[in-house]
């Protein structure tokens, strides 16, 4: 498993956007991960807590939106969920196209900004 490398990429992307927005803190990170990716959410969260120490993302929460794998049959057009590798349940064709489940992106972040208008 390569969760550490994946988690580092998430931190790179998140930090870059946080800087652009002049964020003082990132509180939440929303990820969209298709079920065809082989990462384990708990492991990513574990590494995240570790590598975000002393960064703008420290103590932020990761939210995983998991997308089930879905396929569309090339032969009969039937759309079906792909829980395991199997032919089209309607016509038994082995030719289908995967239409969902490969998502692997940082969707958005919630940030806090502090305005510099100090009240004396």
């Amino acid at each position, binding site marked *: *498993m*390569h969760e550490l*490398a*994946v988690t580092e*990429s*998430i931190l*790179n*992307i*998140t930090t870059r*956007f946080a800087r652009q*927005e002049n*964020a003082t803190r990132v*509180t939440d990170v929303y*990820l969209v991960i298709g079920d*065809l*990716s*082989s990462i384990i959410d708990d492991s990513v969260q574990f590494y995240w807590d570790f590598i975000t120490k002393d960064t703008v993302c420290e103590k932020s929460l990761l939210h995983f939106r998991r997308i089930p794998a879905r396929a569309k049959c*090339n032969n009969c057009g039937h759309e079906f969920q792909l829980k*395991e*590798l*199997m*032919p089209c349940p309607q016509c038994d064709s*082995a*030719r*289908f196209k*995967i239409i969902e489940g490969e998502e*692997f*992106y*940082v*969707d*958005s*972040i*919630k*940030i*806090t*900004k*502090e*305005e*510099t*208008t*100090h*009240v004396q």
Partner: protein
Amino acid sequence: MCNSHDHSHDHTHDHVSIVENIMSQNDQLAAHNRKLLDKAGVFGINIMASPGAGKTSVILKTIEALSDRYKIAVIEGDTAPVTIDADKIIAKGVPAVQINTGGNCHLDAHMTLHGMDELELDELDLLIIENVGNLVCPAGVALGTHANVVIASVPEGDDKPYKYPNIYRGIDVILLNKTDLMPYIDFKMDYFLQGLEMLNPGLESFALSAKSGEGIAAWTAWLEERIHEHQHRHHREHTHTH
């Protein structure tokens, strides 16, 4: 979150849309690697397989078949600083760069670039990258190569496409190695091929044995054709002898 402050300064909470692929940085670097290879007229292949499928043996046979006509180099990905594989390649008179991934389970575009930096790309026709032995992690990690190859082997069993589907998607060719063991193993070729067909319709496949040499010629002929196409496309001036 704000109730611990006295609001001597204002907080704003924003929800910022990003929508960026987690692999984007790797993919950008892979595109850069691809450009370097194209510029030098080098055809690059990324070989992935489980440990023991016969990656190094197939690479050695490939070198034997092609090294009289093409300049070849190999990048070896290993999780530990052992040069066993690289030494075998070098013994064939072919330059090999070993990349120790420091325990990491796959090569990425960045490590590949470091390996490429150590080679005289302009002198080469074919770059073979031997990925870390692993059927899970190298999937979907682009290196910048022109063809992604998986080597499966008969003793691993016919159900690998069903158990490790991701590695078989997005590859260009599959080699089924150790066919000499077919008489001793209950390997249902139809079942294996149907799994591949579902994952990667029309995938190019070659059954071969690095031990007996059977089937190697068909694979190297395919590879040679790809090298030619690539060199033609990039109008390479050949400065070395064939």
